[in-house]
C-alpha cells in the first residue's frame, strides 16, 4: 500500500506535527506499507525537511512533498494536483479545522481538499482532531461577535459536510462520533483512539534536585493562555515555595509574538523559563524534570496529545474544567487536578494540592502512565490500516459497478 498523508510534519511548527511524526514513524514499520508520502506544508526560508537517507530494512521509504502553505488560498488545488501526480493508493488527512490557515477563507478552502481528492478517484480517510460543534470559537481566536460566530458555525457545518465526503472520517472522542451521526446523518464516522506516542520505560517519580518544576507544553496564544499560569505561579512563590515555571513550546501560528509579550510582562518574576521550540530528543527530559504538567486552556479543540505525553512520562497533571478534557480523562483512564479556566486562584489551589503532596503526585503519575500504556500508537496505526484495506476493497468494488446516474456511487 502506498499511503499519502496530508499533514504538518516536523520541523514544520504546524499544529499536529508531533502526532504526524509518531504516526508516520510506526506506519513505516508495517509490512503492508510500501511507501509513505507526506504532503507537507512548505517551510520558511532556511529550513528543510530531513532527507530519507538512512534506509533501514523493514521500514518503508519516506518521501516528503511540500505542496501547501499555511494561510494560502490555493492549498486544496495544490494538494489535489500533488495527489494526482503521485497516485497513492489512499490519502490520509491529519487535520483540524485551522490546519490550513488562521483566516477563515484559507482554513475553509483548505478543507475542500479531501472531497476534491475523492472526486479525483483516490480513496480518502480524514482524521479530524476537532469538530466545529464543540469548539469555543471566541477562545480559539474566532468569532469576535455573536453574528460572526453564527456565520462561522454555518460555514463550519458546510465544511463538515464536505469533510464527510471522505470515505471515512475518524475522530478521537466518542461524543464526536455521536454528534456527527446525529447532526449530519453520517454513517462512516468512526472512533479511533489517539494512541500513546512512545514506548517509554517506566518513569521515575522522583523530582530532580532543585526547585520543583511546573511545566506547560504546546503552542500558545489562542486557547492556550499563559497569563493565568504566571499569575498562579506568582501566588505560589509568594507563599514561600521553591518553584520553577517552565513554558515549553512556541507561539501558535495564529498568535505570533504572544510568548514574547508574556515574557516581557513577567520579566520581574524569578524562576520563569521559556524554552522555545522543543526538539524531539529533548521531550523526555522536559517531561521527566516536571513535577506537574499544566494545561492552561480556555477551550479544547480535541483530544490532547500533551496529555498522552504527560501520561507516558508518569506525570501528574492540572487541567481546566472543560467538557472534552474531563471526558477524555474519564474515558481513557487518566486522572488530574482541575481548575476553573481563566481563574489564577483556582489554578494556584490545584497546583498547591499536588506540589505539597508527593504521594498524590506519585499515584496520579502512576495512573496516567498506565492509561498512556493502554493503546500504543503502533496499534492505532494497525486500526487505520485495517480501515484503509476495507476502503480500498469497497472502492475497487465500486469501480466494477457502473455508477448510478446523477451522482456518486453509494458508500
Amino acid at each position, binding site marked *: 500500500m502506498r499511503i499519502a498523508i496530508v499533514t504538518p510534519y516536523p520541523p514544520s511548527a504546524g499544529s499536529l506535527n508531533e502526532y504526524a511524526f509518531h504516526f508516520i514513524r510506526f506506519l513505516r514499520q508495517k509490512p503492508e506499507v510500501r511507501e509513505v508520502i507526506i504532503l507537507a506544508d512548505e517551510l520558511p526560508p532556511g529550513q528543510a525537511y530531513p532527507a530519507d537517507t538512512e534506509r533501514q530494512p523493514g521500514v518503508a521509504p519516506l518521501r516528503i512533498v511540500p505542496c501547501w502553505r499555511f494561510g494560502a488560498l490555493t492549498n486544496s488545488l495544490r494538494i489535489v494536483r500533488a495527489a494526482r501526480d503521485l497516485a497513492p493508493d489512499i490519502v490520509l488527512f491529519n487535520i483540524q479545522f485551522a490546519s490550513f490557515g488562521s483566516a477563515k477563507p484559507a482554513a475553509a478552502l483548505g478543507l475542500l481538499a479531501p472531497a476534491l481528492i475523492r472526486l479525483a478517484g483516490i480513496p480518502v480517510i480524514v482524521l479530524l482532531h476537532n469538530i466545529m460543534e464543540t469548539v469555543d470559537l471566541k477562545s480559539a481566536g474566532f468569532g469576535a461577535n455573536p453574528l460572526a460566530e453564527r456565520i462561522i458555525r454555518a460555514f463550519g457545518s458546510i465544511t463538515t459536510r464536505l469533510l464527510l465526503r471522505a470515505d471515512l472520517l475518524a475522530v478521537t472522542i466518542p461524543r464526536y*462520533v455521536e454528534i456527527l451521526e446525529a447532526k449530519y446523518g453520517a454513517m462512516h464516522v*468512526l*472512533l479511533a483512539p489517539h494512541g500513546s506516542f512512545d514506548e517509554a520505560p517506566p518513569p521515575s517519580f522522583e523530582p530532580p534536585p532543585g526547585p520543583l518544576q511546573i511545566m506547560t507544553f504546546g503552542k500558545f496564544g489562542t486557547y492556550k493562555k499563559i497569563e493565568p499560569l504566571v499569575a498562579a505561579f506568582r501566588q505560589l512563590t509568594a507563599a514561600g515555595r521553591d518553584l520553577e515555571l517552565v513554558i515549553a513550546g512556541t507561539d501558535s501560528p495564529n498568535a505570533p509574538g504572544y510568548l514574547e509579550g508574556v515574557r516581557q510582562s513577567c520579566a520581574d518574576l524569578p524562576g520563569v523559563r521559556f524554552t522555545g521550540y522543543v526538539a524531539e530528543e529533548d521531550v523526555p527530559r522536559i517531561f521527566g524534570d516536571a513535577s506537574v504538567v499544566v494545561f492552561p486552556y480556555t477551550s479544547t479543540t480535541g483530544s490532547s496529545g500533551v496529555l498522552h505525553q504527560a501520561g507516558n512520562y508518569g506525570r501528574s497533571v492540572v487541567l481546566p474544567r472543560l467538557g472534552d478534557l474531563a471526558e477524555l480523562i474519564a474515558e481513557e483512564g487518566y486522572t488530574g487536578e482541575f481548575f476553573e479556566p481563566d481563574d489564577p486562584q483556582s489554578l494556584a489551589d490545584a497546583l498547591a494540592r499536588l506540589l505539597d503532596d508527593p504521594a498524590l503526585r506519585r499515584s496520579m503519575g502512576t495512573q496516567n502512565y498506565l492509561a498512556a500504556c*493502554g*493503546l500504543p500508537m503502533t*496499534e492505532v496505526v494497525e486500526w487505520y490500516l*485495517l*480501515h484503509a484495506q476495507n476502503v480500498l476493497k469497497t472502492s475497487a468494488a465500486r469501480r466494477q459497478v457502473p455508477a448510478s446516474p446523477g451522482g456518486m456511487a453509494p458508500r
Partner: protein
Amino acid sequence: MALITRGSGSVAVLEIAGRFDAHVAPDVLAWYKQTPSSAVVVNLAGVNFIDSSALAALAGGMKRCRQRGGDLKLCGLQQPVRIIFELTRMERAFDIFATEAEAVASFTI
C-alpha cells in the same frame, strides 16, 4: 475474566467471559502464539465490557491468522460490545456471527 479454549475440527475456539480489557489482552495474545491453527473463532458471548486494548488484540489476531492464510471470526457479541464495534467501525473489519456454530461452519463453506 475467564478464557476457555477448545477445538472444533481444524478451527480453534477461544471463549472469553467477563471484562475483556488491557489486563486480559496479553493472555489472548499469548494464546494466539501457542495455537497452531490459523482458523480461529473468538466467542464473546460472555463478555460484557471491551476496551481499545481488547479490540487491538482481536485485530492483531485477525492479521496474524490472515497472514497465515486463515482468518479470525467473532461470535456472540452482546449489545454493549456490539456498540463499541460499531463506534469504531470494527464490525466492518471482522466477520461476525450470531453463534459459535455459525462462525465455525463459515470456515468450511
